[in-house]
């Protein structure tokens, strides 16, 4: 992305933003003394920081860069990626929230695979879930660290390799020192920044096109499908997005893991309302910029974009005051860093806590904390290396990560925690099926061994298959479980 930048504003606000993250990191590091502090923030997080942190971790850089670009190129088809949030903001609390919170407190659980291991009384199920999380994290980290590098480059004008390592180093500093406790409080700062930046840009986007009705009329005149209910790609693609992002959101471990951290379970009552408001504000930019840029290009007031990802930077630099543009760039960095921090934390937990448990080994708490910090550093370096060396593979890894989490964890976690008929065999079969199918089919599709018809995605196909496997295997083995009981 080669765009001119207002360097003075960007540099000052960017430097202030990174400094604020560092200060919060130092504060949190001093308060991180136990494994529970490091992995579940000492189960001490209040409702408001909890809701804002959940929003910040859910949204990655995609909400600010890739998403608006996708709206610009395929119209409202892209809306079906965020539309499921109308349901899933509450579904998270309904399906996972109270259960994870209660299990975590009663059994001192600190990870998502812990919950799976306890639910099915199976070390194998816990180990497989940890492996799925680790494999998925590699992809997610690579994609997000590269995106962070691009933003750091825009903020400070350094080379991309230098920017990747600089971004990774700042995130690592607070993640390794203060663990998830630092992550939560940095998330609160970052989430507030994202919501403010997104709302301001949405207003500028509507103003640039003289209001929504005028924008619609301009676009409708040249492409009626763009703002049609299914966008330019049609109903099957849009509905497939809806299915994958509605059901798949219940299997994202970095979100589910946060339920352990809430101080008072009774405060969960207001969580869906707060997180809904926060998500609504933070996602205004996603649609607003994509649609406004399309109208500006149609009217000839903006040149056609070289790549869709240029939609947000190009709009910010041409139609938004430079101080606000700088705030949004900091907001994008915030979105990425909050996601990276969450992944570093659950990745370190999978290695130091879940895998040893799966092999029947116990690690004492003090060593777990030291090892957790060590593995956070290793994962961060691995993410930076993947970002630097993987080339075109990096985009594939990001898609792969979301799909793998959805396909392996939705059945065993989201359905399994609520369905009495779920069995250990069903969980093991569905997680294994998710791992094998996602790895095999995504790799084969990436290498162009086959092409799926429009409207069918590997994640959608694998997700529905693993759910069916989970239900069928559980039903077939349920009799044996009942007899044992």
């Amino acid at each position: 992305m080669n765009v001119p930048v207002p360097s003075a504003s960007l540099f000052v606000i960017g430097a202030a933003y990174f400094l604020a993250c560092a200060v919060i990191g130092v504060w949190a590091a001093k308060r991180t003394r136990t494994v529970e502090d490091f992995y579940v923030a000492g189960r001490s997080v209040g409702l408001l920081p909890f809701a804002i942190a959940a929003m910040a971790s859910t949204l990655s850089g995609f909400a600010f860069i890739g998403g608006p670009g996708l709206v610009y190129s395929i119209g409202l088809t892209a809306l079906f990626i965020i539309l499921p949030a109308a349901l899933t903001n509450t579904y998270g609390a309904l399906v996972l929230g109270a259960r994870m919170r209660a299990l975590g407190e009663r059994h001192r659980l600190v990870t998502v695979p812990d919950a799976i291991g306890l639910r099915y009384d199976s070390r194998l199920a816990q180990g497989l879930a940890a492996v799925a999380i680790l494999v998925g994290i590699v992809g997610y980290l690579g994609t997000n660290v590269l995106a962070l590098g691009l933003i750091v480059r825009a903020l400070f004008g350094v080379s991309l390799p230098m920017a990747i390592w600089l971004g990774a180093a700042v995130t690592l500093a607070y993640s390794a020192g203060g663990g998830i406790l630092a992550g939560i409080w940095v998330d609160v700062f970052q989430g507030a920044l994202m919501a403010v930046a997104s709302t301001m840009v949405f207003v500028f986007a509507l103003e640039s096109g003289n209001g929504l009705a005028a924008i619609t009329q301009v676009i409708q005149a040249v492409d009626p499908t763009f703002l049609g209910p299914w966008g330019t790609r049609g109903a099957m693609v849009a509905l497939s997005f809806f299915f994958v992002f509605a059901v798949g959101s219940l299997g994202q471990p970095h979100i589910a893991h946060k339920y352990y951290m809430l101080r008072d379970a009774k405060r969960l009552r207001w969580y869906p309302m707060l997180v809904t408001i926060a998500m609504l504000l933070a996602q205004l930019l996603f649609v607003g910029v994509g649609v406004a840029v399309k109208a500006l290009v149609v009217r000839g007031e903006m040149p056609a974009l070289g790549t869709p990802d240029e939609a947000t930077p190009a709009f910010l630099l041409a139609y938004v005051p430079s101080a606000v543009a700088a705030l949004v760039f900091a907001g994008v960095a915030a979105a990425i860093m909050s996601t990276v921090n969450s992944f570093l934390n659950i990745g370190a937990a999978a290695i130091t806590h879940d895998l040893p448990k799966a092999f029947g080994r116990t690690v004492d708490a003090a060593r777990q904390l030291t090892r957790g910090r060590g593995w956070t550093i290793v994962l961060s370096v691995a993410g930076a290396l993947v970002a630097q060396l993987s080339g075109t593979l990096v985009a594939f890894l990001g898609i792969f990560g979301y799909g793998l989490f959805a396909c392996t964890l939705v059945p065993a976690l989201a359905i399994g925690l609520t369905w009495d008929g779920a069995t250990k065999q069903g969980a093991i079969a569905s997680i294994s099926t998710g791992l094998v199918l996602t790895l095999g089919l995504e790799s084969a599709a990436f290498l162009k061994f086959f092409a799926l018809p429009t409207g069918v995605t590997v994640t959608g196909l694998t997700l529905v298959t693993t759910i069916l496997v989970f239900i069928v295997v559980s039903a077939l083995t349920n009799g044996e479980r009942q007899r044992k009981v």
Partner: protein
Amino acid sequence: MFIGALGVLGAYVLTFLGGSVAAPWLLAAGATLMLTGVGLLGAGAKAPRLSAAVIIACLSTFIGFACALWLTPPTTDGPLLFGLPLATAVMLLYVGAVPLILLPIAYAWAFPREVGTE
């Protein structure tokens, strides 16, 4: 939920076989049926208010999809509602606005009696 999953799989199979007008209907019905099942399991057996909210929200989602599939495709000079093409505005109202407002309010309302926190 099982029937919903079969519906989604059926939609994908129809698409593999060259596509059919039934495929998006099957996917819309299957996905919302699955979400209804997941939501009802999440609410639990002793949660009539939450269960009712889940059913209404999912029904509204399906109605939104059905309207979008039924209504005339947008044209260059079609009518606007809230600044958007009519079919889009109707779809967003049912799929977006109704669940977005209903579910958090229903959850907060039913919480003390219907959500176990211990």
